[in-house]
């Protein structure tokens, strides 16, 4: 074992025999100097609770606590997990034109969202590629709340700001507020709703997947969205930072220890099992939402009208089919990781893995990646190359673990 490698715990980067993929490392935005890392309001709370802190997207974040990543993942699905996701960037767009403004930048039918509902969407670029994925919520017609990835914060804010400047120069009414005064907690799993219900008078049984409310939780006004990144039922709670630790403590206490603080390592296992993309791996600047399997997120009206960056290419792909598609894989041997090559049974290259790992719930290797359209059907046998050797695998549908989103029956 190399002593140095024991400390690279924040990265799920496979040692590659021949190819040192510097692009991947650069994209991860790791700060080499620990003192320059940003800290969330819960940083010291994580450390006090056994959190193993690692650099992630310029922040010092817990990769795990005293329990292992596997145990944490299983506990989330059996009981529940509390994640500090304050590194992600929450912002509000306000003004009477905030909806048409945002529609230029994303594929969602923002106008068609009922107040208090949201959706996963993609910020596209002029080539139809993905700048970032994001959960956006229409609070009211003149207020949109959105959360973007930590690793894309600077890029996304620069992009939104540039477009806001030209939009307002033409007389449009939109402004923004970046919620750096708030922290974001994710509470996920079967106990999420029962535990949270103890802390609020609002009837959570009426808040369905994708819906949003501003309400008092633990005596503090919070933004609550029934959403998450694990495939389980759960919530993301935006709380004023000075009350974040109190809220975290209250949630953990109400669960009588069943809901556990959970780190980024398990968060990655959970989202992979749920078949969800990780921007930077499964989605990138050159990957379109159609290729990524997010056609469902392109609003029907948007498919007819376009009017977002890259619409020409995206609508063309909807018409003719995309050249590659995101699929799931099962494979034997070692877990396939990002950039592992995928071949057909005859050894011809047909695609590439973009994320992979061992599924704690299924107890087998799972992965996602892109293959040439036409070869993407579930059941297709493939060979996946890991560290110079080819292992048998097959394409499968996602999610790998059934999702439990709370939807009206």
């Amino acid at each position, binding site marked *: *074992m*190399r*002593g140095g*490698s*024991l*400390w*690279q*715990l924040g*990265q*799920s*980067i*496979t*040692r590659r025999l021949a190819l040192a993929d510097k692009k991947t490392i650069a994209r991860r935005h790791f700060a080499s100097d620990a003192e320059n890392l940003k800290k969330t309001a819960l940083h010291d709370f994580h450390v006090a609770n056994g959190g193993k802190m690692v650099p992630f997207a310029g922040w010092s974040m817990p*990769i*795990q606590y005293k329990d*292992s*990543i*596997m145990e944490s993942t299983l506990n989330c699905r059996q009981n529940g997990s509390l994640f500090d996701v304050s590194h992600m960037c929450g912002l509000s767009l306000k003004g009477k034109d905030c909806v048409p403004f945002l529609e230029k930048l994303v594929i969602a039918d923002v106008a068609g969202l009922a107040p208090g509902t949201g959706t996963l969407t993609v910020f596209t670029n002029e080539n139809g590629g993905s700048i970032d994925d994001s959960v956006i919520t229409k609070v009211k017609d003149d207020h949109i709340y959105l959360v973007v990835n930590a690793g894309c914060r600077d890029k996304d804010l620069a992009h939104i700001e540039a477009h806001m400047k030209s939009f307002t120069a033409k007389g449009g009414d939109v402004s923004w507020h970046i919620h750096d005064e708030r922290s974001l907690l994710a509470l996920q799993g079967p106990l999420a709703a029962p535990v949270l219900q103890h802390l609020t008078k609002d009837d959570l049984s009426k808040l369905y997947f994708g819906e949003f409310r501003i309400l008092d939780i633990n005596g503090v006004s919070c933004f609550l969205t029934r959403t998450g990144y694990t495939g389980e039922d759960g919530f993301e709670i935006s709380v004023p930072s000075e009350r974040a630790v109190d809220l975290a403590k209250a949630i953990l206490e109400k669960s009588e220890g069943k809901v556990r603080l959970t780190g980024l*390592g398990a968060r990655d*296992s959970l989202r992979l099992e749920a078949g969800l993309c990780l921007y930077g791996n499964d989605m990138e600047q050159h990957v379109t939402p159609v290729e990524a399997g997010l056609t469902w997120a392109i609003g029907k009206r948007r498919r007819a009208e376009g009017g977002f960056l890259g619409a020409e290419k995206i609508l063309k792909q909807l018409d003719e089919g995309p050249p590659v598609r995101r699929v799931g894989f099962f494979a034997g*041997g*070692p*877990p396939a*990781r990002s950039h592992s090559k995928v071949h057909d049974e005859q050894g011809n290259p047909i695609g590439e893995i973009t994320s992979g*790992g*061992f599924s*704690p719930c299924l107890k087998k*290797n799972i992965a996602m990646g892109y293959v040439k359209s036409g070869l993407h059907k579930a059941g297709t046998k493939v060979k996946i190359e890991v*560290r110079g050797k080819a292992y048998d695998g097959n394409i499968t549908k996602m999610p790998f673990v059934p999702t439990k989103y709370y939807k009206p029956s």
Partner: protein
Amino acid sequence: IKDLKYADSHEWVKVDGNSATIGITDHAQDHLGDVVYVELPEVGVTVKQDASFGAVESVKATSDVNSPVSGKVVEVNEELSSSPALVNSSPYEDGWIIKVEMDNAGELKKLMDADQYTKFCEEEDSKH
């Protein structure tokens, strides 16, 4: 554990005559996390002191395993193919990785004893 010798890359070796059993230490498995796969060499290959002969893969990272001694691999722990977690639960016993016929017992002098290794780990941990 007291009679084992240790490499600074966190492998242990147990010597019995000319035979050396090799694995990774408890300190190593603790940092790695849940082991999900062990890449084993084939019986008969040569290994060299300080050179990599295989890998241990956890949920978060893959790490090379280096041999603390030079020689020929005479046995590999096949159990690890179906139960890689043995490396976590029993790093010094059931989680052994390979057995080597040493070609130069003198190489053992380069390794640390238990006390030196413990101190080495403490120093390494305090740097981070």
